[in-house]
């Protein structure tokens, strides 16, 4: 199976390809939120480098978030249209699980918290247990880095933090005495390709926002005149 993976939920734009003959190439094509300008160009280059033609792609794997709303939409709109165009299947993986599998691959074991920068002073977080395999302990959520740090300090559990949310709020996460940090700015493309191969394909993928649009949130909570 020939797989193509796309990552646009973070500052970076990454593309990965793995062919049925075992060639695997993954690349960060941009580090500065230029998803629109770099994604399709990067896909075209990588497909060519892997010795494939576009219609030989059998499955497209896409990071469906949580992460940057605009970046997510660029990645998912691209993935959906590409899959529709070539008639291939799709798999959506979350940024948080890509980070967990990336850490696992690098040898991290025990409790791991993936944290993706959610902007507005928040991080998207999920807890995993890394042993022989990777297991999610709870659902993904949104929290302030201060709350996440305080919660894990209180628990006393030895753990590892990873993700760009950890780098963004390094001071808060460094303050947790019982925690180490595995530096990983970009979700692992190798993990995405591996996860994409295991899952059963779908027709389309929807973004995982985890937070409603600001206007809706403000509208719902605003004070109404009596």
């Amino acid at each position, binding site marked *: 199976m020939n797989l193509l993976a796309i990552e646009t939920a973070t500052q970076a734009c990454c593309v990965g390809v793995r062919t049925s003959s075992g060639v695997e190439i993954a690349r960060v094509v941009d580090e500065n939120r230029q998803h629109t300008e770099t*994604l399709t*160009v990067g*896909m075209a280059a990588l497909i060519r480098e892997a010795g494939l033609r576009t219609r030989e792609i059998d499955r497209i794997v896409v990071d469906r978030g949580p992460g940057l709303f605009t970046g997510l*939409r660029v990645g998912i*709109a*691209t993935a959906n249209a590409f899959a*529709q165009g070539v008639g291939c299947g799709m798999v959506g993986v979350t940024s948080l699980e890509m980070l967990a599998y990336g850490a696992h691959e690098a040898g991290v074991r025990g409790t791991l918290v993936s944290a993706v920068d959610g902007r507005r002073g928040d991080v998207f977080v999920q807890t995993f247990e890394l042993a022989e395999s990777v297991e999610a302990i709870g659902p993904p959520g949104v929290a302030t880095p201060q709350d996440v740090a305080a919660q894990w300090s209180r628990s006393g559990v030895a753990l590892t933090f990873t993700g760009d949310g950890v780098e963004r709020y390094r001071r808060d996460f460094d303050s947790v005495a019982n925690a180490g940090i595995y530096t990983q700015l970009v979700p692992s493309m190798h993990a995405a390709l591996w996860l994409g191969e295991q899952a059963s394909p779908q027709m389309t993928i929807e973004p995982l926002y985890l937070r409603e649009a600001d206007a809706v949130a403000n509208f719902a909570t605003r004070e109404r005149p009596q």
Partner: protein
Amino acid sequence: MPLVLGIETSCDETAAAVVDGDFHVISSVVESSIDQHRAFGGVVPELAGRAHVTTIGPVIRRTLKEAGLDQHYPSIDGIAVTSGPGLIGSLLVGLSAAKALALAWDVPFVAVNHLEGHLFAPLLEQPDLEWPILTLLVSGGHSLIVLQRSLGQHEVLGETIDDAAGEAYDKIARWLGLGYPGGPEIDRLAQTGTAGALKLPVSMTGSDLDLSFSGLKTAVVRATQKHTEVDLADVAASFQAAVCEQLLRKLRAAMQAHEVKGVALAGGVAANSLLRSGVTQLASEFAVVSHLPTMAMCTDNAAMIAAAGLYRLASSGPSGLDLSANPNWQLADVS
């Protein structure tokens, strides 16, 4: 005969269309997220962006199906997509889909200016139209008077210096407690009102062809604050008459200054009944042809984008896959 797939996602409409080299519309599908925005009295960019992601795939599938084309390898010769002006988060969805399809099908794609798209709309219903043409392009986001010397050769003669005409309608509708969008609401209410009931200024912004609606908006607010017993239908009729009078006076001045063969209306506000009859009258007065596109062609659609794309592909060539959206792309900067 070349076939172009057009894609339009600059505001709240998600649209796709297939148009052939003779500017015949083979299929055209338009979905809108307007219901999600009503409660906010205007388009909420984040909600529009989210809706586009979900809707764009099904809209393109339906468009291809209705054109009798294969879903995976349609015999399409090019893809045209709006890359500005518009809401950045919305534009990027259509642009991403267009690039991905161009890559998947190995066909060229071309970025189209949304306003230039509107200028191509009359051509889709009257392929034999004669140049030059003066176009009044009025919508929720834009108000311009454009001289088209020939296909794709346009010059902006005048432009709003503050609100767009449709924007003024929305603001007044909100002020009067009417629904969103304001255009159809005010137009409907105005049918039963008396236009002269409220004394409103017709802003003329000097002798040039620029337009202005903010003074009129302020005047309506003041007048209705002073006289609380005023009839809403009279306000709607008076406001609508003042908007149309300004638009038509400027259009008349443009026609006096430039000899043309036709006069056209474009944009969502072109659906307005008073404006349509005014332009028809103006055309007969100057003995030129009037081009009043049907509702479906006045409002945002992808057939007009495909049409402009056909022209742009032939005249300027395809765009690069590294192209970004330009939310502030001016019509005067199109070349």
